[in-house]
């Protein structure tokens, strides 16, 4: 295959991306799709803040507000944060461990397309009779009473995209266990790889409860089940438990990779080895472990009883310990380092106080007695935006600047990047800091408007002004991206100059086979070690030989499309006679394409040794 360097038409590029199984291209797909949904969720956030800017506002009606609020949460968690995290995992993790691809390239592509079709399905609800309106938690007693098809879109859309996420998580686990380069022991893995590993394990155990919960809800709403209906002997609390058994690990699924990205940023721009590497690994694993034993702290006011509340309360507070270990390790990494204040580093530095504030309110909420006061107030809203925006979104923005050159071969503009950062930071604190006090003053969550004269007017206005700062920051970021793509100034393999891990030893973007020869890893921060010894590149661990590559495949797209079609059939089968046939046709497409995949042998192809040698002579690949 020596055609990869040629210019291609739009159609060919599109077909290439539709069928790709290359982890770097799938990362770009995740980035584009996740970025799009991030903008959609952000737009919904702006509508929320506009509606709440002044008392008694009628910018949107109460019903539409519920839909916007639900879709903001659902979109941001499932369709923006998760895929953006997956974008960086796909782009960086295989490079960091010295692998040529993930373990199952076909499944990687299938995971993306399932997520994509699930997300599109969920958002089509806006045009097909109304979006889900029972909050992102979709508690059963509320969602079973919801009219129209909004909740059905939620259930089916999340079921499809959740399957994609589960597939992605298993794929990363197998990749990290089996495909590390020679010398890359577990305790030499970069921290981003470690957090990817623990996160993938959390996905493996946390998504099945969600799948079960969504299936039960699906049967309740569409096929006459009564799992959550107390009148028929069901129990509505079961949904809450199943949802939070998934939902609490989910927030660690989001924040652990963010910790990983920050660990990389701190080490690179302090130009020091990460302080307390082994304790960082330990803390990551411990957070993952404890994350499964605290879900009921979301349900303190449900009436679990004092013993259960006390157990979950103490378990929750225990999580502050490993998180504290991490915070101090990052501070000590910077201490005595030669710090460069680049855009990613600014995000990382701003993350520490922001996230710590979110953590402190977290410990406050963990106390069951206090939680009765805070529950369902804006205090909770402020808390989780501090941890999720301050932790995850800062990491995604910082990571975008850090890894943009590795993914696209160009550098985002630093000046514009810093403008984005400052606008976003100021806007974020302006929006959410004051919401702590709104909550303490008694403003409840999820209300579509409020009356004047309760002392909420000024604070809500401030909050809305802050939201506009964040919107402007996002626009500046988009301008930055467009400018960078238009200029297209190529950079080398280690554009920050201080790259420590294996991915920076490769050209930007890396050739499609990643490593011509698998590298020999001689310690933590493998590339840094070679640099310190005066080597320009990694020592190879094998002679140049043929490289086995997988073929592109259109089957993942078709499987996902089949589920997408089947979901429409399932949803409309009660009121339209075409429902059941469409459901069957969709499933036939799914199983037919799986059957096709199973019986057709696809052995991939080899890049021959001679072609690899030719690349050397012709300059950069």
């Amino acid at each position, binding site marked *: 295959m020596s055609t990869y360097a040629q210019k291609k038409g739009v159609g060919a590029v599109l077909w290439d991306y539709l069928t790709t199984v290359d982890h770097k291209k799938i990362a770009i797909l995740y980035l584009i799709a996740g970025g799009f949904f991030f903008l959609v969720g952000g737009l919904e956030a702006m509508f929320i803040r506009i509606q709440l800017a002044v008392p008694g506002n009628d910018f949107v009606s109460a019903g539409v507000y519920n839909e916007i609020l639900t879709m903001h949460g659902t979109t941001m968690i499932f369709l923006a944060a998760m895929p953006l995290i997956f974008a960086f995992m796909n782009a960086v993790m295989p490079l960091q461990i010295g692998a040529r691809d993930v373990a199952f390239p076909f499944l990687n592509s299938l995971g993306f397309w399932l997520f994509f079709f699930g997300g599109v399905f969920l958002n089509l609800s806006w045009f097909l009779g109304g979006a889900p309106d029972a909050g992102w938690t979709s508690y059963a007693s509320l969602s079973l009473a919801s009219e129209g098809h909004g909740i059905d879109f939620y259930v089916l859309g999340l079921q499809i995209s959740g399957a994609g996420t589960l597939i992605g998580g298993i794929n990363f686990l197998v990749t990290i266990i089996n495909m590390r380069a020679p010398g890359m022991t577990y305790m030499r893995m970069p921290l981003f790889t470690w957090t990817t590993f623990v996160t993938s394990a959390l996905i493996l155990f946390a998504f099945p409860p969600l799948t079960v919960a969504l299936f039960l809800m699906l049967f309740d709403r569409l096929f006459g089940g009564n799992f959550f209906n107390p009148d028929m002997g069901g129990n509505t609390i079961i949904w809450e438990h199943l949802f939070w058994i998934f939902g609490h690990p989910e927030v660690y699924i989001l924040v652990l990779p963010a910790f990983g990205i920050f660990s990389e940023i701190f080490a690179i721009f302090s130009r020091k080895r990460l302080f307390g590497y082994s304790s960082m690994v330990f803390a990551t694993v411990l957070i993952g472990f404890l994350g499964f*034993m605290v879900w009921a702290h979301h349900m303190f006011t449900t009436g679990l009883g004092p013993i259960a509340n006390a157990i979950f309360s103490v378990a929750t507070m225990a999580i502050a310990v490993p998180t504290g270990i991490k915070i101090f390790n990052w501070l000590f990494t910077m201490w005595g380092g030669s710090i460069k204040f680049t855009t990613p580093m600014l995000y990382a530095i701003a993350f520490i106080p922001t996230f710590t504030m979110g953590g402190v309110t977290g410990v406050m909420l963990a106390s069951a007695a206090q939680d009765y006061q805070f529950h369902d107030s804006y205090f909770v809203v402020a808390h989780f935006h501090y941890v999720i925006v301050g932790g995850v979104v800062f990491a995604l923005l910082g990571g975008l600047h850090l890894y943009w050159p590795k993914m696209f071969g160009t550098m985002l503009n630093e000046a514009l990047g810093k403008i984005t950062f400052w606008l976003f930071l100021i806007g974020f604190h302006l929006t959410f800091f004051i919401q702590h006090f709104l909550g303490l003053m008694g403003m409840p969550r999820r209300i579509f408007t409020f009356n004047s004269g309760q002392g909420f007017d000024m604070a809500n206005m401030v909050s809305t002004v802050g939201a506009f700062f964040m919107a402007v920051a996002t626009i500046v970021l988009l301008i930055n991206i467009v400018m960078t793509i238009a200029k297209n100034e190529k950079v080398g393999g280690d554009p920050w100059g201080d790259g420590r891990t294996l991915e920076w030893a490769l050209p930007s973007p890396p050739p499609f086979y990643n490593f011509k020869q698998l590298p020999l890893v001689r310690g933590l921060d493998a590339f840094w070690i070679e640099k310190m010894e005066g080597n320009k590149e990694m020592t190879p661990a094998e002679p140049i030989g043929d490289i086995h590559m997988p073929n592109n495949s259109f089957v993942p797209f078709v499987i996902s499309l089949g589920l997408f079609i089947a979901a429409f059939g399932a949803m409309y089968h009660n009121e339209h006679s075409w429902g059941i046939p469409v459901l069957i046709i969709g499933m036939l497409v799914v199983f037919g394409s799986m059957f096709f995949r199973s019986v057709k042998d696809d052995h991939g192809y080899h890049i021959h040794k001679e072609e690899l040698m030719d690349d050397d002579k012709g300059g950069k690949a």
Partner: protein
Amino acid sequence: MANEELNSGNPKVDIEYRRRKSAEEMRYQVVSFAMMIFLTFVAFIAVGYDISGWFTIPFILVLAIIQVGFQLYYFMHMSHKGHEAPALFLYSGVFVAFITLLAFVTIIWW
């Protein structure tokens, strides 16, 4: 690969050694198979005789756990080297499932 079977057909491995290993493996399998049938009989007897449910139910649960152990370690070769990662994930899954069930039986249903 670390988790290759001992009787992998690798010509470098001594044939006598492999034969002895296979025989040993076979003996374990037969013994655990016999034990499993025996435990099943015991379980049936425990249920068949009219003993209090407070004895029977925990008793057959323990027997079931032992049987799962036999199944995993002797029939599915988890006792061999190179199964650490699968074992870790298996036990993590068991742990999560156990916590979930524990919560359901203690704070939802009873």
